[in-house]
């Protein structure tokens, strides 16, 4: 449960896993923020492949990272969402803040 961070020159990728709720979001947020604040990447990718549950705390997590990236004009990608979580992100209007992709949709590689 939590987050694994991978980074290269252009992009930080956060591989999220397990359940994202208000309880677990705090630690996930801290890990992502310390990685991106140091590097100020052009792109932050949040990978939801291994996320088994999420509630609106995950939407807050996406919104908060979007705001942080604004400080240096970084972009946000939210990828590998299950059909269900894709629907929730759309319901929340996240497609206007970032690129949303479902599982099986192709991701740009390096």
């Amino acid at each position: 449960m939590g987050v694994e961070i991978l980074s290269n020159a252009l992009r930080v990728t956060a591989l999220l896993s397990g359940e994202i709720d208000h309880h677990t979001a705090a630690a996930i947020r801290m890990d992502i923020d310390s990685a991106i604040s140091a590097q100020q990447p052009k792109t932050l990718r949040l990978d939801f492949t291994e996320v088994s549950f999420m509630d609106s705390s995950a939407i807050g997590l996406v919104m908060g990272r979007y705001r942080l990236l604004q400080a240096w004009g970084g972009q946000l990608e939210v990828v590998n969402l299950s059909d269900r979580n894709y629907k929730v992100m759309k319901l929340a209007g996240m497609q206007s803040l970032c690129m949303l992709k479902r599982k099986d949709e192709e991701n740009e590689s390096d």
Partner: protein
Amino acid sequence: MKAINQMKMTLESRSVNESFARVAVSAFAAQHDPTVEEISDIKTAVSEAVTNCIVHAYPETVGDIYIWVGLYENGMVRVRIKDKGCGIINIKQAMEPLFTTLGGERAGLGFAVMESFMDKVRVRSTPGKGTTVTMDKLIKGRCDGQG
């Protein structure tokens, strides 16, 4: 209408209990033979209501969260989540999508999520006394269309 089976529990408003609350409620509701999707719907809605008790109702303290679940003959599940916290002054405004009194990491979408995953959501609240959220969902279940 009378419930054919009921469950009650009281939990302290600690964030570590969020996952226990949603798993316990959905495990009880499993008696109605819901689909995986319906289980996820209930889990998500319970997570929202319980989190609201923790972050909003009892912001600086630990209080009790009272959860009641009723199962009905027709396949309905009713979940009631109650706190004795600060209460809500304007319920209509609180339920509007994107409205939040906390900002920061909160999206203001908890009630919108509850309403999208459950058939009916009712909120009663008295400022200074507490809030009760009651949610209904008709379980169509795995047997749907086969008998």
